[in-house]
C-alpha cells in the first residue's frame, strides 16, 4: 500500500481533530470496510437470485459511509443497534462475512444460528444488539442500552440507527422524550435515504424546514444534519455527539443524508417507478460514498487506483468465500426449534425445570 503519511487534505472536515489524527492505514481500513460491505451485499444479491436465500433482503449499497464512519468512532463501552437493513453495521462492528452470509443462507453457522435471517443479525460480543425487523422497534431499546450504561456508571454511548420513515413511529417519540428527560447517552442516527419503501420523505413526514432531525428541538435535544457522502463529515458530526454523550450524558439526534442504490428490498419491483432512473443514476455517479472516499485517498496520496482495485478484488474474493462457507455449512437441526426461547430452559436451571414451558404435541 501507499505511503503511511498523508498529504494535507483540502476536503471539508479533513481538519477536524478526529480526522486529522487518522493514520493512512486507518483511512485505508475505512475504505476497505466500505468496500467489503458493498461486495458482501452484491454477493448476497446474486445468491438470493440463485435461490439460496429466503425471505427479505434489504441491501445497504450506497449507505456504507454512514455505518462505517460512525462506528469507526466507537470504543469499548459504546454500543450499536439498528433496524433490518443491518448487514453494513454488522461488518462495521467487526462481524465476519462467514457468519453473516451463513445467516442469510439459513445455516447453523450463521450469526443467529439461522434463526433470525437477514433482518436479525446480532453480536453482543461486539456490542451489536441487532438487527430489528419492526420499524422503530429498536428505538426504545437504544435508549435502554444507554440507560444501562449510565446506570452502571460506564462512560459510553449507544448509536441507534433508524430510517427516515421510522421517525414516524410512536415508540420513537416516547423514547426521545425519555432520552432527553433522563439525559441518556443515546445518539439517534436517522439514515435519511429519502424513501420509506415507495414513499418519499415529503409524503411521509411533517417536519421543520431545517430537516427531520430538527424535530429534536421539541424535546430540547441537540441535533445536526450531515451530508453522508463524506466519511470526514460523518466522523466530525458524530464525534460531537459521542463527546456529548460521553462527557455530559446527553442524547443527540443526527440526520445523515444518504441514498440506497437498490430497491427497498430485493422484492421491491417498483424501485425504478417511485424514483426516476435519472435520480438513481445521479446519486450513483455523484454521491457514491465509496467513490468519494477513494478519490479523497487518491488525492491525499494515500492510495493509488491500483491499490483500490486490489482492495476491491480482495473483498470480492472474501465475499465469494463466505458464500462457499455458507453453502457447505449444515442447516440447523429440527431439534433446535425449541432452543433459545427461554434462558432458564436452555441452561437447565431449577426455574427452567419447573412447570411446563412448551405446549406442542
Amino acid at each position, binding site marked *: 500500500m501507499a505511503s503511511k503519511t498523508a498529504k494535507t487534505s483540502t476536503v471539508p472536515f479533513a481538519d477536524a481533530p478526529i480526522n486529522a489524527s487518522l493514520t493512512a492505514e486507518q483511512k485505508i481500513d475505512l475504505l476497505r470496510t466500505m468496500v467489503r460491505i458493498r461486495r458482501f451485499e452484491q454477493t448476497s444479491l446474486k445468491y438470493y437470485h440463485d435461490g439460496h436465500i*429466503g*425471505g*427479505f433482503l434489504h441491501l445497504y449499497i450506497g449507505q456504507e459511509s454512514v455505518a462505517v464512519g460512525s462506528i469507526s468512532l466507537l470504543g469499548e463501552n459504546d454500543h450499536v443497534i439498528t433496524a433490518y437493513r443491518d448487514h453494513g453495521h454488522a461488518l462495521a462492528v467487526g462481524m465476519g462475512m462467514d457468519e453473516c452470509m451463513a*445467516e442469510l443462507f*439459513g*445455516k447453523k453457522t450463521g450469526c*443467529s444460528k*439461522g*434463526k*433470525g*435471517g437477514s*433482518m*436479525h443479525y446480532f453480536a453482543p460480543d461486539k456490542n451489536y444488539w441487532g438487527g*430489528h*425487523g*419492526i*420499524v*422503530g*422497534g429498536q428505538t426504545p431499546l437504544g435508549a435502554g442500552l444507554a440507560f444501562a450504561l449510565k446506570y452502571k456508571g460506564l462512560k459510553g454511548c449507544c448509536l441507534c440507527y433508524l430510517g427516515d*420513515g*421510522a421517525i*414516524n*413511529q*410512536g*415508540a420513537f417519540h416516547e423514547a426521545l422524550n425519555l432520552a432527553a428527560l433522563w439525559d441518556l447517552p443515546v445518539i439517534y442516527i436517522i439514515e435519511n435515504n429519502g424513501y*420509506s*419503501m*415507495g*414513499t418519499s420523505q415529503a*409524503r*411521509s*413526514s411533517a417536519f421543520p424546514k431545517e430537516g427531520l432531525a430538527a424535530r429534536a428541538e421539541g424535546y430540547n435535544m441537540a441535533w445536526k444534519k450531515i451530508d453522508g457522502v463524506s466519511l470526514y463529515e460523518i466522523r466530525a458530526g458524530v464525534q460531537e455527539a459521542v463527546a456529548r454523550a460521553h462527557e455530559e450524558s446527553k442524547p443527540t439526534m443526527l440526520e445523515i443524508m444518504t441514498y440506497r442504490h437498490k430497491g427497498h428490498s430485493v422484492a421491491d419491483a*417498483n424501485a425504478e417507478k*417511485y424514483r426516476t432512473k435519472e435520480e438513481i443514476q445521479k446519486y450513483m455517479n455523484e454521491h457514491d460514498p465509496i467513490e468519494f472516499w477513494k478519490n479523497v485517498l487518491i488525492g491525499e496520496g494515500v492510495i493509488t487506483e491500483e491499490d483500490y482495485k486490489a482492495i476491491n478484488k480482495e473483498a470480492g474474493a472474501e465475499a465469494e468465500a463466505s458464500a462457499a462457507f455458507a453453502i457447505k455449512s449444515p*442447516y*440447523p437441526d*429440527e431439534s*433446535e*426449534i*425449541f432452543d433459545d*426461547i427461554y434462558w432458564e430452559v436452555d441452561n437447565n436451571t431449577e426455574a427452567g425445570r419447573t412447570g411446563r414451558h*412448551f*405446549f*406442542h404435541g
Partner: protein
Amino acid sequence: MPREITYREALREGLDEELARDENVCIIGEEVAQYNGAYKVTEGLWKKWGDKRVIDAPISEAGFIGMGIGASMLGIRPVMELMFYSFAYVAFDQMMNNAATCRYMSGGLTNCPIVVRGPANGGTNVGATHSHTPENIFANMPGLKVVTPSNPYDAKGLIKSAIRDNDPVYFMESTVLYGMTGLVPSNDELEGGELIVPIGKARVSREGSDLTLLAHGRAVVTSLAAAEILGAQHGISVEVVDLRSIRPLDEETIMASVRKTHRAIYVEENKPFCGVGAQISSMIMEQAFDDLDAPVLRITSADAPAFYSPPIEKLQLPTADEIVARALTIC
C-alpha cells in the same frame, strides 16, 4: 359466468365494489395507493378512486389505526391495511382497547365500523417478528370480530360483509394464499347482484363421515390435502369444516359435523397455547362429549417463534402428512 380469479383479485373486487357502493368507505395503509399495495391487493384502486378514498399512510400504525377508529365513530368506514398483521402489535392498544371497548363503556352510544385487514401468516422465511398469527389474541376480546378467509370466493364475500358490519372486524389474510385461484361468480349471475358471505357461517368444504377436520385460513387448504390422502390411501372419509370466522363462531355447523363423524381434529397455523383449537375442543367436549369416539386433537404450528431458516420453518407449520399421521392414531 363464474371466473377463475386469485384470492388477491377477489379481495380487490370486494374493496372496489364497496368503494363504489358507499362514499364513506376509504382505504388507508402503508403503500396502498401509489405503490399499489405491498402485496398488490389494492392495485389500481388509487388510480380509479383518487387521493381522498385510497390513502398512503406513514409508518405510524398506532396513529393511523387509532385515527380510523375515531373516524368510524363519526360514520366513516375505514378499511385499514396492515402490510403484515404482525404490525398490529404496535397498534395494540388502539385495536384491543379502543376499538373493542368504546361501545361498551359508552353504554351502547357509540360503535366502530372499522375493518383492519392484512396478511397474518408464517411460512415465508421472514423471521419471528413478521410471522405472527394473532387471530386467537384478537378473538379473545369481546367486541371484536375475527375473519379468516381461506379461498377467493370467501375472500370477496367476506370483505364485503366486513365493510358493511357495524362493529370492528379484523380480517386476516395470508401472503401464501394471495396467488391462489378459485371460482368466483360474476355479479350478473348472482341473485341480488353481488357476492356476500355472512360473517359467522362456517363452510363445509368437503363432506365425509369418519372424521372432521376443523380449520381456518390456510390450514383449510392443508386439511383438504390431508383429507384426499386419508380417503385415497386409508379409506377414511373426512369432512372438512372451514370456520371462515373465529368470532362470531358457527357453533352449529361444528357440532353437527362432529355428531356425524364422532372424531375431530382442529388444524391451525396458530400457536397451541390458548389457540383457536383450544377453545373449540373445549366446546366440543362440553357439548358433544357423548358423540365422541376419540379425544379431540389439535394440530398447530410449533410452540416456538418462527425460525428463519427455510427448511426448518417448514417443519414448524402443520403439513398434510402430519395431519394424516395424527388422524390415523384416532381412526
